[in-house]
């Protein structure tokens, strides 16, 4: 359904943007500075050189820092110390009404019964 809609170029560009997002997500998930190889393990289907290229680009944007450690480099995401982004996000989420509903949120809130049900479902998994 969606396959033929995008041109080859657009599909490739989108895939690159997605890969960049996945590298950034893996870097944040690590929670400590990690080498590029550790990131590559976490991003399925990405070549080592591609991960390195993306990391370099993220460094260039100032979103990732690179430090020398032993023989190689380790990478870490740059955190927003002032917390501006988090504050902005909370103001979006907490306001309720239209402002919160227009965000396509991953999750809605849970009732206590929902929680029990989910735990049962996870155990059955």
């Amino acid at each position, binding site marked *: 359904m*969606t396959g033929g809609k995008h041109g080859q170029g657009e599909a490739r560009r989108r895939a*690159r*943007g*997605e*890969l*960049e*997002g*996945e*590298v*950034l*997500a*893996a870097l*944040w*998930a690590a929670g400590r500075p990690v080498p590029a190889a550790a990131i590559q*393990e*976490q*991003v*399925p289907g990405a070549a080592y050189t591609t991960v390195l290229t*993306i990391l370099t680009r*993220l460094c260039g944007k*100032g*979103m*990732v820092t690179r430090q020398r450690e032993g023989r190689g480099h380790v990478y870490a*995401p740059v*955190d*927003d110390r002032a*917390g*501006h*982004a*988090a504050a*902005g*996000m*909370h*103001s*979006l*989420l907490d306001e309720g*009404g*239209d*402002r919160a*509903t*227009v*965000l*396509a*949120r*991953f*999750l*809605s*809130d*849970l*009732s206590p*019964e*929902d*929680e029990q*049900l*989910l*735990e049962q*479902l*996870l155990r*059955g*998994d």
Partner: protein
Amino acid sequence: MFWPVPMYLPLLVSAVLALTAPWAARRLPPRVAVWAMTCAAVVAAGTWVTELAILAFTAVGQVPLVAEQGPWSVRVLAAEDPVSRKFAAVCAGVVLLLVAGLTVASWRRGRALIDAWRECRHIAAGGDLAVVDDPVPTAFAVLGMPGRIVVSSGMLRLLDGPERQALLAHERAHLRHRHHLFSLLLHLTAVVNPLLRPLERAGAFAVERWADEEACAAVGNRRVVARAIARAALASGRAAKAALSATGGPVPRRVQALLAPPLRRADGVTAAFVILMATCCASLAVTAHDTERLFEAAMHAYAAAPRLRTR
């Protein structure tokens, strides 16, 4: 004599469409369900407003100043009008209220979408992803050119590699398939006709299910997607315990749907949607045609008998 079809039939058919659509859509795969529900909502709301406007115009047409523009005979119009003038005037009032309500709702939703985009534009993004350093697990997609996914570091640390991929694929599906626009349409139609509110809720749920199914296709494992949603929901529930959790329900249903085999196409249900929508439009066309004949008759009467012109 001009009304072989009751004037109220389009209102009745659109009400039937509005009330049966959420129930019927549950039997459809999410993508088809969202399309079917959105089309049904637009047809039902459109029919509702147009029919009210038609009824209202039979009263407006009796205002001498308006009748002069035709010109048509006010007396013939009043005599042949199938609805009382009082009722038609009420319809006119309702139409005005609906237009005002729609304007306010559009403006507020539009503002909210622009605010969300502005707020998230400043967060540095790698590709389509902006990460916010925050322990509370949250994730959402913001409409834009291009759209953007915002995820908190708490959410990313909570999930393993494949689950993270599922989360990103879910949010990307919202952006790629313009889910914000479906939600907007469903919301505005529910503003126009309160009978469509259950359909708005069902549509919101189906949109999430659609994104879940896209995530399944991207990750290649339904259980991983189910686990990602369940784990993230449980963790964010605990993190936000203090905050109120007013609306519950949809998350366990999403997880259950993912643990069950995917729904098959149900052509019968889709056909039922199409038939109901067509009936809606047809009944509306018939009343529009009847109203046109009514006004034509009044115009003939005006042309044939100039003495009627005074009133």
